[in-house]
């Protein structure tokens, strides 16, 4: 393609939420310069506001902030905040993006985020980070973990900007960062591709007047409630009512607010509300065991991986009450400000119930800027129109879209799409890989081995943040006296750019071979100082930080003397450790630039093509004689897309692509090696073996279909599976037209004790086939017997169409099953109708179609130990992290996609395959894998080979050398947690940079704080 001749090796990512962050990190990792654009003053998006994430109840900020810090410290990612995209021009490979950048009025490079200005700012504003539930000041750092961590001024309300008064911030800022001269400006950046990850717009709950949002004090949105639950929120996680600060006892969640609701123009399902409501109910109970949460819903859509278990546990074990019924209105009681919820129960009778607090589970709406800024075609709801089989492809070549902007979705699906988008961008630009990357060049490292430690101690005042609360000169004087310290001085801001040059000079002039900086937290600033030390020719691991701000001055503001002494001892601890630090080498290992994909279904073929398009040869191993996998049984999708044609095209392309070597009829027998250097043995039908060497593996082993034993399947030819029915529909079987009635039964083999998960696709499949039948013969009656209809996202449209087309949906309870029998030659289905209070409905029918569930591929059991990756209880592969690493494993270099991971639709499999390909590409595109210096090492002399550390490593990094009978650490796999080292009674296993002797010295130094 023309654009591949010399494309621009840069990508613009629009939107700094989890999707944009993921895409940016992935792209930088793949060798491209990234411009990360956010219209707000910080990256982080909605995920940064969440307290916990379902279905693991994991702390949202804990998992997001490390990624935000990564974005901030990656020199190849340029974060541009307060920016909007005005226009995008050009072709893939060569695009120009015009941006409008609003003034921040604070110089990001000078601001240290100390907060002095906020303290002096007279203008109170509702805090956007807390969804307006608390106040902050006009000038403030958006939130503690913000990136960039600089203050921002709200021009609308700033006294100086509105009427030239105040200016306190200018006076108080010792860094001179406040800059009212900043003006709005336009900028054009040149990139090869654009990735749109603008996220979504929360539904404006006030539009549903019957719920009284904004009128009744104790009606809040789910986003507001998320902040109330947040330990870092306005109430520190105390579940109290806005009206009177009283603890909440009876809590109600109203589902589908602004979703599945044509009256507000949102016919689609927002896909995430059922689960986040369940999560919020659980967390509320955690914080306040006495609380009684009730969730009012239509269908409980727990369709994702492990969602069903989460939901059933919430109901059965944690006492969350679920009531099927939509709230028709909410009244507020005058005195108590309690709320009366009116709803129709399952029998259709109107009920009214009183609650202290009502949470409206608001839906996700399309974000702005898709059509205007990016010039993308949007669907009826304003979401970006996307390719039916690869939803990250937008209507516009060169512009990829991911996350909720394409269709409402949760975090993992967003991360999958973001990773996929990064990979597809790379496929278009790989000719320009690494061309625009900045690499830091460093002088050769001085050899300090054998030298006496010469420690330099820099004590930072951080403006008044440290200097204002403790006696910095006294800390400096104290540091001077410490053994090994040959230099100690203070700085106003140790992190400022000029300070870095000064430190470099100090290190050289004083021949320092160890550096201690006493300032703020190493979590954000260690990379900067290490970088500086390295630029002075000293190994960056000869650095130690003392956190005398977050852990001292800021938390002991009333006790200057004690805080000063504490700071002195924190410095002493750092110095004592620094004296024993040793230079660490970052490991390197080779990479075989070739991939292996296990499984030749839709996911596997797409993964293989992804790697090939990025320029890497790949083996595609398929057990069966032909490619295609399960998708061969599917003929059309719910959007009317021709799956057959797609599949044939895909197979043809795979066979055409010379970088893909297809090995059908081959089985994987053994896998050895590790990331970068795998050796896989495959065997064909005749027992001929081949050894494949590759740098990464993608697991796309697919899934299976539940084989029904119930409902007379196999006994009566009139009982079929949906696939069998679908074939007859696709073949336009004339006999279908004569059918009087067809009954479809949902959840066959799903959501049962043996398979306690939702198969995700069956509801849509049934609705799809029901509609198709209706088209073939409108007179045929179609009944769908279901428990919950889980047509999430835009699938809801098809569900509605089906109802409008006269398909009858009949619900039965979880604890009952329909009964299929033959009565005098005719098929009869009996089912207790839950909406008729369980009254049994008897349906004579010509055909019964069973919506059978998806099962895990039995081969996974053999593959898992070979690749050292785990499976869940149902036999699907278990990813490294449910939220942020949905295609990775703890074992590096192995990735998963498609049904091998969990039940999912074709387009979801394709997206996940592209993501897996991108992750694998990020391994293959490196000539060497560089590993951190902080890793475990085993001293073979001291090791007696007990093997405990081998079992303790979750990353398979420690192996047992049978020859020498000792443990060996593979530093390319070790993540440096040190769990193994703590178990070694012989002290043979040590964590570099955190050795026991170093920590013992820290402890002694700490203790001396009281002995001295």
């Amino acid at each position, binding site marked *: 393609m023309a654009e591949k001749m010399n494309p621009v090796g840069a990508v613009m990512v629009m939107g700094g939420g989890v999707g944009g962050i993921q895409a940016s990190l992935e792209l930088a990792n793949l060798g491209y310069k990234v411009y990360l654009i956010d219209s707000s003053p910080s990256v982080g998006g909605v995920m940064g506001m969440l307290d916990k994430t379902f279905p693991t109840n994991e702390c949202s900020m804990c998992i997001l902030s490390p990624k935000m810090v990564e974005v901030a410290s990656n020199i190849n990612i340029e974060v541009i905040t307060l920016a909007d995209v005005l226009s995008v021009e050009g072709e893939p490979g060569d695009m120009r993006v015009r941006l409008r950048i609003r003034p921040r009025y604070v110089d990001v490079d000078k601001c240290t985020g100390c907060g002095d200005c906020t303290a002096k700012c007279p203008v109170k504003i509702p805090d956007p980070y807390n969804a307006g539930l608390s106040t902050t000041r006009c000038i403030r750092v958006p939130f503690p973990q913000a990136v960039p961590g600089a203050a921002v001024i709200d021009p609308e309300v700033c006294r100086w900007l509105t009427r030239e008064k105040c200016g306190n911030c200018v006076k108080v800022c010792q860094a001179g960062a406040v800059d009212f001269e900043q003006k709005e400006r336009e900028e054009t950046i040149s990139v090869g591709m654009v990735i749109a990850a603008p996220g979504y717009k929360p539904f404006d709950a006030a539009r549903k007047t019957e719920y009284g949002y904004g009128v009744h004090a104790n009606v809040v949105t789910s986003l507001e409630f998320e902040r109330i639950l947040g330990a870092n929120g306005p109430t520190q996680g105390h579940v109290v009512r806005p009206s009177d600060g009283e603890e909440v006892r009876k809590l109600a969640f109203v589902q589908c607010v602004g979703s599945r609701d044509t009256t507000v123009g949102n016919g689609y399902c927002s896909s995430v509300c059922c689960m986040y409501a369940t999560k919020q109910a659980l967390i509320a109970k955690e914080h306040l065991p006495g609380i009684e949460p009730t969730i009012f819903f239509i269908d409980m859509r727990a369709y994702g991986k492990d969602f069903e278990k989460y939901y059933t546990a919430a109901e059965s074990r944690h006492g969350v009450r679920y009531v099927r019924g939509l709230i028709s209105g909410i009244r507020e009681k005058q005195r108590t400000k309690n709320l009366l919820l009116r709803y129709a129960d399952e029998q259709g009778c109107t009920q009214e119930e009183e609650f202290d607090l009502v949470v409206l589970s608001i839906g996700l709406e399309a974000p702005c800027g898709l059509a205007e800024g990016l010039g993308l075609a949007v669907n009826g709801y304003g979401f970006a129109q996307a390719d039916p089989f690869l939803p990250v492809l937008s209507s516009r070549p060169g512009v990829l879209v991911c996350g909720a902007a394409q269709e409402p979705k949760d975090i993992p699906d967003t991360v999958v799409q973001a990773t996929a988008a990064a990979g597809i961008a790379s496929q278009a630009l790989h000719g320009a890989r690494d061309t625009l990357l900045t690499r830091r060049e460093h002088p050769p490292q001085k050899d300090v081995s054998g030298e006496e430690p010469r420690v330099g101690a820099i004590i930072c005042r951080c403006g008044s943040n440290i200097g204002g609360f403790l006696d910095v000169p006294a800390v400096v004087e104290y540091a001077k006296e410490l053994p090994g310290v040959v230099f100690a001085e203070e700085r106003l801001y140790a992190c400022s750019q000029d300070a870095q040059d000064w430190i470099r000079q100090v290190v050289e002039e004083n021949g320092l071979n160890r550096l201690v900086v006493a300032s703020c937290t190493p979590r954000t600033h260690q990379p900067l100082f290490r970088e500086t030390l390295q630029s002075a020719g000293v190994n960056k691991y000869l650095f130690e930080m003392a956190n005398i701000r977050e852990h001292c001055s800021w938390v002991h503001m009333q006790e200057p003397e004690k805080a000063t002494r504490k700071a002195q001892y924190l410095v002493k601890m750092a110095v004592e450790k620094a004296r024993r630090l040793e230079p660490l080498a970052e490991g390197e290992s080779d990479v075989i630039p070739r991939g292996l994909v296990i499984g030749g279904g839709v996911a596997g073929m797409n993964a293989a093509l992804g790697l090939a398009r990025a320029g890497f040869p790949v083996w595609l191993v398929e057990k069966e004689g032909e490619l295609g996998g399960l998708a061969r049984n599917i003929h059309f999708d719910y959007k009317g897309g021709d799956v057959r044609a797609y599949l044939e095209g895909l197979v043809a392309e795979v066979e055409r692509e010379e970088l893909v070597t297809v090995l059908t009829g081959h089985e994987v027998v053994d896998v050895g090696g590790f990331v970068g250097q795998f050796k896989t043995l495959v065997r064909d039908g005749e027992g001929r073996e081949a050894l494949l060497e590759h740098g990464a593996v993608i697991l796309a082993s697919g899934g299976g279909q539940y084989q029904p034993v119930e409902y007379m399947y196999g006994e009566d030819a009139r009982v079929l599976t949906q696939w069998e029915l679908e074939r007859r529909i696709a073949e336009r079987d004339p006999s279908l037209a004569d059918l009087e009635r067809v009954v479809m039964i949902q959840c066959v083999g799903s959501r049962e004790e043996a398979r306690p998960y939702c198969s995700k696709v069956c509801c849509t499949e049934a609705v799809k086939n029901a509609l198709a039948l209706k088209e073939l013969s409108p007179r045929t009656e179609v009944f769908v017997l279901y428990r919950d209809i889980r047509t999430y996202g835009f699938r809801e449209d098809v569900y509605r169409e089906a109802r409008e087309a006269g398909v009858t949906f009949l619900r039965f309870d979880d604890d009952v099953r329909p009964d299929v029998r033959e009565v005098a030659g005719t098929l009869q289905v009996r089912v207790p109708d839950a909406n008729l209070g369980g009254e049994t409905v008897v349906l004579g029918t010509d055909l019964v179609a069973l919506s059978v569930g998806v099962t895990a591929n039995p081969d996974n059991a053999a593959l898992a130990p070979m690749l050292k990756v785990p499976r869940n209880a149902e036999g699907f592969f278990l990813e490294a992290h449910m939220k942020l690493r949905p295609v990775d494993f703890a074992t590096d270099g192995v990735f998963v996609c498609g049904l091998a991971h969990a039940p999912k639709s074709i387009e979801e499999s394709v997206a996940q395959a592209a993501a897996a390909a991108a992750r694998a590409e990020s391994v293959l595109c490196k000539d060497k894998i560089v590993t951190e210096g902080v890793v475990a090492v085993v001293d073979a002399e001291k090791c007696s080979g007990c093997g405990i550390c081998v*079992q*303790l490593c979750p990353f398979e990094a420690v192996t047992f050398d049978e020859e020498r009978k000792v443990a060996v650490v593979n530093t390319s796999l070790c993540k440096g947690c040190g769990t193994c080292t703590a178990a070694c*009674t012989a002290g043979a296993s040590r964590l570099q940079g955190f050795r026991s002797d170093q920590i013992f010295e820290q402890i002694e130094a700490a203790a001396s704080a009281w002995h001295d």
Partner: protein
Amino acid sequence: MSDLKSIVREKLRDGADAFLCLKNEEGTVLPALITDADSPDLELVEVGDSRYPLGKILIDLLREYPDKRFAVLVRGCDERALVELSKLEQVDLERLVLVGVACSAEEAAACGCLRPYPSDIALGEKVEAAPGREVIDEVESLSDAERMAWWREQFSRCIKCYGCRNICPMCFCKDCALEEPHLVEPGVIPPDFPSFHIIRALDMTGRCIDCGLCEEACPAGIPLRSLYRKMQDIMEDKLEYRAGESAEERSPLSFLGSEQDIEKLEE
């Protein structure tokens, strides 16, 4: 003991290259390695009433003679030691033939271990004995302060001979935390209270098979065995594991385990 003698012969005949047991040499009972059916030592073999760390001896023998198979006379404790040592890759049970001897009623009563007999008994009668808990019960009846004073007094007698470690069949580390200067100050006797003894107790947790050799070897008569016994009780109570009982099950302190284990622990 004629039948022990015939057992030794038989094992040597049936493929063991050597038999490790005890012999009585002019009134001194000591370990002996019989490599030959005509060895004069064969006349001296006996079960003996003294106990030696045969497991520890076997660690070295198996390493020294990698192609040999050994038969060994084991009491309950010796067997537990070998089972635990095999999980820790120190002995290879495949190369061992265990000949079990049950402790006599008197021995069992004096020892007070939970299983004074091996799984297969070739010699002696299996007897159960009341577990020795006197010291533990006594200590537990005391208040925190009294307990510390009690142990302080006990440990103050320690002459740091390292006998408890040296004789322990479960101690095989090449480097020992008890010789790490940061933890145990060199040249200080008695060692700092309580680090020396708590460190050893922790290293024994999930490992000590309650043979009591440590206490027998202690010149200061410190009730070490009760300390280590208590550690195993804690281990069983918290993590449902007792060293030496099963050949498959491993100490929960040696693998990551599942979230359920932790939930149980936190209850």
